[in-house]
């Protein structure tokens, strides 16, 4: 299984808790903003769901070769 990477822009995040509730294994709320538990993860659709649901588009998910998987613009 290939690895994905999660980038989270904490400057954009407004701490809605959408991602932490959508993918509780992958995100954590810390001091009012979200942060990925691990920046490199096994493929998991929940991460894509979280990135697609973020109202601020603060979460970027990339495949191993750097292609952006989510959010789709």
């Amino acid at each position: 299984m290939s690895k994905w990477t999660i980038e989270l822009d904490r400057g954009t995040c407004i701490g809605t808790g959408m991602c932490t509730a959508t993918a509780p294994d992958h995100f954590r709320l810390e001091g009012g903003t979200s942060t990925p538990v691990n920046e490199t993860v096994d493929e998991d659709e929940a991460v894509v769901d979280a990135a697609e649901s973020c109202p601020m588009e603060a979460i970027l998910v990339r495949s191993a070769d750097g292609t952006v998987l989510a959010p789709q613009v």
Partner: protein
Amino acid sequence: MEPRSYPFPEPDDLVVNETYLELQRDEPVARVRLPYGREAWLATRYADAKIVLADPRFSRAPVMDAGYDPPRTMPEVPRISTILSMDPPEHTRLRRILAKAFTARRTEQLRERAQQIVDDLLDEVQAQGPPADLVDALAMPVAITLISEMLGVPALDRAKFREWSDAAVAITAFTVPEIEAAAASLRAYIRDLVEEKRENPADDMLTVLVHAHDNEDRLTEEELVSFGVTLLIAGHETTGSEISNFVYQLLTHPDRLAELHADPSLVPAAVEELLRVTKLSGSPGFPRIATADVELSGVTIRAGEAVFVDGLVVNRDPAVFANPHELDFHRAHNPHFAFGHGVHHCIGAPLARMELQVSISTLLRRFPGLELSGEVVFKKGRLVRGPERLPVRW
């Protein structure tokens, strides 16, 4: 101890009932009884609310289970599932269909259109001359026009659904048969509109939903209709009321108003702060059901028990907000729960923010001498609070 009757009596103004604040201080997780259904808990502190709203050990779905007697204000047990009665992954499946339509970026693209709508309405107000009722002349039409255009509701039908929607969001302001009839009319109306979009697809959200049902099998026909109704109601009752509420708050806080006139760049911060302090919700909200035993402020919530949280009360928690009852446009950090928290965080939040910013800033700029010209009476017995009329002169 005897559970308290809940919801607490509604104040006449936009303030928070004192009982909430006493509980927040002395009994942060309190036992409550609603008019119907089983007993429940009421959590009033920010830290507990965060757990109830975003921890996966709390669920919305059991309220739809046959045999579960949810705590509620109306005799009927709601049996029509909406996005608000779902958990992930069902919730995520529905939410994702429209998430793109509501991102902050997408909403910014609508700012120009919102500005135009507000300008046209205020041209009319100016032409008519004082006094004016800003509920009818600005607040409701701005919110209704924008959500209707996004959804694809024809302009001609808007008066019709406003009447239904007014009754559909009632708790005690109408009789139960009236409320049910209005809700049924709204569903029938959306059902017809869905058929119409099927025949004539357009660049709007109802067409996106129809496509997701017909071509991608991502939601059922019932979910499609429920989603349309929810968006239509939630999309204008709340924002429309908040525009009026915020204008009222500013006109009754002259120092804060003067501050905004002196520095209009404070408007976005002012909108956040008004969101934080204005008690919009007139209902107990949607209870969350524990799926495991969870401890909140030293109280154990047993699996199966229901917990209510009121975001607007939580927003007054002194542990998070210094001088919580003060309207302060200079808070460095304002993580309020006015839009909720967790997966059910309002999908329309960026849209509502933008509409509020445009309405408030334009109104202040064009009517610098604005003041109340009569008594303001607030609606009661509804899910959302707002003035019946907002009489102003300038």
